[in-house]
């Protein structure tokens, strides 16, 4: 059974600081997805990482994938309040085409 674990689950940051959210998964997968969820809202796709070594950046967020280590990171640079949200990673389930397995989510709060 594929397991996806994120850490930390709660992250309180000051504006201007850098931090990284980690996403570990337990079985082989080539594709990883990051989603953002604002309070009371739906999930919005942030990044799709398709291969080992893939790196995607948008604004202050950068995601990377290491399939050999079964690890993805979401790096936050110089955090701003607008980045406060819950971030989920999700992994393709190779043995069940179409399904994704989600991590527990990381609740990020950025303080002034």
């Amino acid at each position, binding site marked *: 059974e594929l397991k996806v674990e994120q850490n930390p689950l709660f992250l309180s940051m000051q504006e201007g600081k850098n931090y990284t959210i980690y996403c570990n998964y337990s079985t082989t997968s080539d594709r990883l997805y990051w989603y953002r969820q604002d309070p009371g*809202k*739906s*999930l919005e796709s942030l990044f799709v990482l398709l291969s080992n070594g893939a790196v995607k950046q948008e604004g202050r967020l950068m995601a990377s994938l290491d399939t050999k280590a079964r690890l993805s990171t979401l790096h936050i640079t110089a955090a701003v309040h607008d980045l406060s949200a819950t971030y989920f990673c999700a992994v393709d389930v190779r043995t069940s*085409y*179409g399904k994704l397995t*989600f*991590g527990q989510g990381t609740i990020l709060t950025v303080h002034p």
Partner: protein
Amino acid sequence: DAGITQSPRYKITETGRQVTLMCHQTWSHSYMFWYRQDLGHGLRLIYYSAAADITDKGEVPDGYVVSRSKTENFPLTLESATRSQTSVYFCASSDPGASRSYNEQFFGPGTRLTVL
């Protein structure tokens, strides 16, 4: 409306009543999914469908029924609602067979269901 929509957005019902949550997508995506989101549990897959008339159980299917007679619709029915089914329900769709789709799932706005 283009995209993926859910109705109702909010629903209050009583224990034992039947409730149907609707999901409609305009992209002709082959796959559709129902998740529930509860504090401390993240997203849990209830049911999914690979195409019209093809459905399968997810992680937490008990107490739920789905059907998919048309590609664009994927209703979720709670046959006899219980308090433990109070949750936020999200529908999603994807088209993993399409070029450059990458199995990315697109989510509806959610339905907040309260069972009294």
